[in-house]
């Protein structure tokens, strides 16, 4: 689950990581009221889960209520790379001396946690990794041991930050690691991590100016409050409909609807539609079984997608037997109003019995094919496609 910046900062704050005081708002009046409470100058920040919002005009400095009103009005409703801004984060402006980068994520290859720290923050870290890899100090943390203060100190020293920032950065990294582990995050990233100007009484103060947090959806049993984040995930209409039905769905740009059992087989089905010259409209994994209920939900999601022109149901029966799968499909066909032609490939355990059950229901609009490749070709042909761009009408 990806968090918005404001959620990430609230998450950080719970683990004691210093962030700028701020409030999340959804209207211009709320923005001004929040800014009045926080104290000027403030920064008005668009909350979207996409990079480049600064360049798009989604981050503005406001010195007073009038400027806050103007910026909030401009930014709310703004479209940033296809994402409409509905939430603003208003926070006190920071007097930045230097910008750094810090993150923790799992290194799947090393099977340890990877911490990255760089004196070159505020920019795209992947670009830094390519052009100047030495500018990123890395540390691999054994999950059993955790991150010790001694390790953190050596790591910070290796990153060659402004020495004034060292102590505060060590503290933040220890807190950030704790947030990453205790909070079951897949990723915690602070870019930029800032050293504040020491003009005032605060010397060497470091804090998180941005927050990018991805939480592990599998950990919800430990963090019941994460359910709330699920509601704010960015999903298109189709993905939301599938999510509501408990289906694993990813929307794609094509026109052949794909239903398969198992993530690997679903991925493979999407691939094969492409290989025969078609374009899949989605990835949809209905899981191990293929009950009438699950199949009904899947067909509802697929048929409600106006771009779908044909449907490819690809089921391999393992423990779930072919006749159970076939009965599920037949029942679902009776429950859902379907305009698009369907091609079924059913194989595996008792596939013969399953095919016998499907046989009487076959027609121009419901076909059966013996192999994945044949079924994919048929589905693509039925969509009126083949090579090149398909016809516009069905």
């Amino acid at each position, binding site marked *: 689950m990806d968090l918005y910046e404001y959620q990430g900062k609230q998450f950080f704050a719970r683990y004691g990581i210093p962030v700028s005081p701020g409030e999340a708002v959804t209207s211009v009046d709320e923005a001004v009221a929040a800014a009045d409470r926080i104290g000027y100058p403030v920064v008005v920040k668009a909350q979207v889960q996409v990079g480049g919002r600064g360049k798009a005009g989604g981050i503005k400095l406001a010195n007073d209520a009038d400027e806050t009103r103007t910026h909030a009005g401009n930014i709310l409703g703004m479209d940033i790379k296809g994402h409409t801004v509905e939430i603003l984060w208003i926070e006190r402006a920071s007097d930045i001396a230097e910008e750094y980068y810090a993150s923790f994520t799992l290194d*799947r*290859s090393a099977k*340890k946690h990877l911490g990255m720290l760089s004196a070159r923050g505020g920019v795209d870290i992947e670009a830094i990794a390519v052009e100047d890899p030495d500018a990123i100090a890395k540390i691999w943390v054994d*999950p059993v041991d955790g991150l010790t203060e001694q390790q953190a100190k050596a790591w910070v020293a290796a990153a060659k930050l402004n020495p004034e920032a060292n102590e505060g950065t060590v503290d933040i990294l220890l807190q950030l690691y704790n947030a990453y582990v205790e909070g079951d995050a897949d990723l915690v990233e602070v870019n930029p991590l800032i050293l504040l100007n020491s003009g005032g009484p605060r010397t060497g103060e470091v804090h998180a100016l941005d927050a990018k947090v991805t939480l592990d959806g599998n950990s919800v049993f430990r963090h019941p409050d994460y359910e709330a984040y699920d509601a704010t995930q960015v999903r298109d209409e189709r993905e939301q409909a599938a999510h509501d039905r408990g289906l694993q769905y990813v929307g794609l740009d094509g026109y052949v609807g794909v239903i398969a059992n198992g*993530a690997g087989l679903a991925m493979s089905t999407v691939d094969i539609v*492409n*290989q025969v010259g078609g374009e899949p409209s989605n990835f949809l994994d209905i899981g191990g079984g293929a009950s009438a209920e699950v199949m009904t939900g899947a067909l509802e999601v697929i048929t409600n997608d106006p771009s779908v022109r044909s449907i490819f149901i690809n089921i*391999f029966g393992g423990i779930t037997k072919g006749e159970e799968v076939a009965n599920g499909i037949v029942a679902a066909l009776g429950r859902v109003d379907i305009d698009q032609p369907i091609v079924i490939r059913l194989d595996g355990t008792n596939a013969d019995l399953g095919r016998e059950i499907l046989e009487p229901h076959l027609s121009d609009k419901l076909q059966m094919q013996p192999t994945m490749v044949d079924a994919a070709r048929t589905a693509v042909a039925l969509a009126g496609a083949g090579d090149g761009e398909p016809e516009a009408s069905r």
Partner: protein
Amino acid sequence: MSVFVDEATKVVYQGLTGSQGRFYGLLNREYGTQVVAGTNPRKAGSDVDGIPVYATVADAVEATGATASCIFIPALGVRDAVIEAAEGGVTFIVCITEGVPAHDEAWFFNKLRRDFPQVRLLGPNCPGIISPGKANIGITAGHIAKAPVPGQAAVGIVSRSGTLTYQALYELKLNDIGVSTCVGIGGDPVPGTSFIDCLEAFEADPDTHAVMMIGEIGGSAEEEAAEFIASKMTKPVVAYVAGVTAPAGKKMGHAGAIVSGGKGTAQAKMDALRDAGAKVGLNPTEAGELMVEVVRDLG
């Protein structure tokens, strides 16, 4: 021979008294697996269709001599269940449970490596392992796998994906090719057993003559396997990688199946495997056909 498990493997099922544990435990026993015990601290002394239930894995090992465990415990109990199994004395742990938090997986992977180096963990989130004709531990439908025929070449299978594993077993069976062992390593970010572990075992197994490897997008396990194939494998490898058309940043069902930061694409994996000398099929059927050719060439 086979790898990791055979007809002599005695297995204790953690969670045998639950609905999934009971269903698959009994199916596995029916297949011929030595399902010698179950565990449930609240039901010690009872039995599941004649299979004795003990409070802990340690008790079960002491009473039955079990050497392996199979975990059907809900995700929140998996971290403790894995350590209980290792401490209890089994040396092979198959964890079927899906939905285990990545931090738990990373923790017990490193804990096992450090404190229980003799223990092999398979999974979590995997279909299990089957040595056709000998033992089936997990959720694979045993009858879709063909046992090796003496005197004929047998294939070892290692796969990150459940249904594609079944598909591979099935394609080989249709082509009358026997399988020595089929290992489902699972689709999670920190699998206990890697492609390389399995390739190494198949390379060393005199009764495995070729290997079918099924990968998918995400991570770099296939690239690492390719390096191993190039430098250490003498047996032929046929590979398939799912997710060529997967968009970046979208999880395709499995927690591990995500292309991020331009890394982990199926194309890069297929290229690496091909460069390493593996034959790469563009779909499961093509991979099956390539394996038929390989087996024919082996005589």
